[in-house]
């Protein structure tokens, strides 16, 4: 059941189009992540939904009713800001109760709701502390509680974990997902972290340059990207362009080809970009008997604790692939200059149609590997 419906949302700042014709729908209770590089329009999209930015055109509907022209304070949308924006002069209690107070709820109702929220965020007994007395993680949870306490239709979060250190971020991800599951509130979560987007979202919206590239569940966004940008952005990979020869094989030129698994909507003759994801490629000294196999030469290796990154040149495809493998103490390392075999399963080969826009640009992943 579609709950939030965004239709052709566009925002221009002078000559700059920050968000262009973005449309998507979110079901009730769903957790949607919005991901994309810096400046792609994530915050602007979120702010338009919240009512903090007026769209140049397009409509926003919640539960069937058009809220596009409602001011922020008339929408029932909770927002968790990147810097939390907790009221410094109010206690944790007053912060969390603010939305209820604005709705004219009495003390008793406020207290019950705040108590419930404090239990959910695991900060019982913090009522009378001030935000500056809380740690970053605690402030973060208070901000979430404040956005949820008045029982909003929708909660928006703009990179809420970006100010936390890596370890805390990890545990807060789980925490946020738990809170969302517990309250069942429809949530849109902005991040520029691919892993976060993939691991947290029921659905993912991938934005680039103000445009929605794909809106799908994580598996499809990862496995069946609809644009080269999506394949590139979600994970490290090496790109080779080619032409679909049969529904299950791509001709990569110079007599090379790669077996793929069939996907709907592709016909032989289509120009496609093939992506070999680093984490899906394996490396061997003996020639493997199955899958796609390429010859390569190790150019460099990089130890990272129990893991080794090999940089392997594949001359036939004119690419360099980075492969990570876990090694135990007894394993012998490969060395620079060694001839190796690279293997990837046809079902692990990711490919996407080339659109006009991406034909000319060098993919960031390729550029990164070449360095």
């Amino acid at each position, binding site marked *: 059941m579609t709950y939030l419906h965004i239709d052709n949302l566009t925002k221009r700042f002078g000559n700059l189009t920050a968000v262009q014709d973005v449309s998507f729908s979110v079901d009730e209770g769903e957790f949607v992540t919005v991901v994309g590089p810096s400046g792609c329009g994530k915050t602007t999209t979120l702010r338009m939904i*919240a*009512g*903090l930015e007026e769209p140049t055109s397009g409509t926003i509907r919640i539960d069937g009713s058009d809220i596009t022209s409602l*001011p*922020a*304070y*008339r*929408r029932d*949308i*909770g*927002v968790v*800001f990147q*810097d939390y*924006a*907790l*009221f*410094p*002069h109010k*206690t944790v209690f007053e912060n969390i109760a*603010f*939305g209820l107070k*604005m*709705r004219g709820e009495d003390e008793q109702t406020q207290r019950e709701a705040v108590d419930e929220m404090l239990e959910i965020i695991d900060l019982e007994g913090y009522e009378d502390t*001030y935000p*500056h007395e809380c740690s970053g993680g605690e402030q973060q949870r208070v901000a979430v509680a*404040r*956005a949820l306490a*008045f029982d909003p239709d929708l909660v928006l979060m703009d990179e809420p974990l970006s100010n936390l250190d890596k370890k805390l971020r990890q545990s807060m991800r789980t925490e946020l997902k738990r809170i969302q599951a517990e309250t069942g509130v429809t949530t849109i979560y902005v991040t520029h972290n691919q892993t976060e987007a993939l691991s947290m979202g029921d659905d993912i919206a991938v934005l680039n340059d103000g445009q929605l590239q794909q809106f799908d569940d994580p598996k499809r966004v990862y496995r069946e990207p609809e644009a080269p940008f999506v394949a590139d952005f979600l994970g490290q990979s090496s790109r080779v362009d080619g032409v679909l020869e049969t529904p299950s094989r791509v001709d990569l030129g110079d007599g090379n080809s790669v077996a793929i698994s069939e996907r709907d909507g592709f016909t032989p003759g289509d120009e496609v970009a093939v992506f070999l994801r680093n984490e899906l490629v394996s490396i061997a000294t003996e020639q493997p008997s199955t899958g796609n196999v390429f010859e390569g030469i190790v150019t460099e290796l990089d130890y990272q604790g129990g893991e080794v990154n090999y940089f392997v040149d594949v001359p036939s495809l004119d690419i360099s692939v980075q492969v990570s493998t876990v090694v135990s103490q007894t394993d012998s390392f490969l060395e620079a200059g060694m001839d190796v075999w690279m293997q990837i399963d046809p079902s692990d080969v990711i490919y996407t149609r080339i659109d006009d826009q991406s034909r000319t640009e060098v993919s960031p992943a390729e550029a990164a590997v070449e360095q």
Partner: protein
Amino acid sequence: MTGQWNWRAVKLVSALVYVSMFVPLLVVVVNSFHPQRMASFPPSSLTLHWYGEFFADQMLLDAVWMSTKVGVATAICAGAVGTLSAMGFVRKQFPVKKGLVIVMLSPMLVPPVIVGLASTMFFTELGWERSILWLVTMHTLIALPYAFLIVRSRLFLFDESLEEAAQTLGADHLTTFREVTFPIISPAILTAMIISFVISFGEFTATQFWVSRETTTAPVVIYTMLETLITPKVNVLATLVLVITIAIPIAGMALQRWLASPTE
């Protein structure tokens, strides 16, 4: 070595500046307790005689009371107008904003004697009699640039996402100001009000054009007394003006501490 010498020189010069500022003030205060009419310094003994005479002189008491009333009214007006105009200048975009800032600040730039003269000619032309309202209006104008600058610099630092947060939680613009903006910037508004009070309370150059017999203020009286009759009561008055000018900011700072305590 030279660095150390430079540093010593800086300390010495600062000390001299402060000494030359505070010693004359100290002389005035001490002389208010001086037994003789023609004061020789230092006094051989101290007396409260002149204080007794001062508090018996209704005209002097009226002047101090007038200065206090005008100062408080000015603090309130300049605080309010300064806050509103600072909000407008920081938050709203409008044409000729830069030019308007200069207009806002001009009372600070024009010599007070000119402000006094010009406004007097103007008001007289309009047929407006000298009154306490006239004083408050003009003192507000003089104090306004300072109040404006103080509140504006606080607003530049203000995190607007706090207001946006309040709005997403259901607060309209007025409620947002009352619940969020005002409490957070109130220490700056208080500072603006204290400065406005102090400016008004001590203003002499322009004020001498604006007072009438009924609305004369303490600084004007000090000047007139020196011109016309030599009485040590003027030292008492000066001491009192000094005490009020120092006591108000200190009281204000204490209040500010108290206001700001939860957010520190």
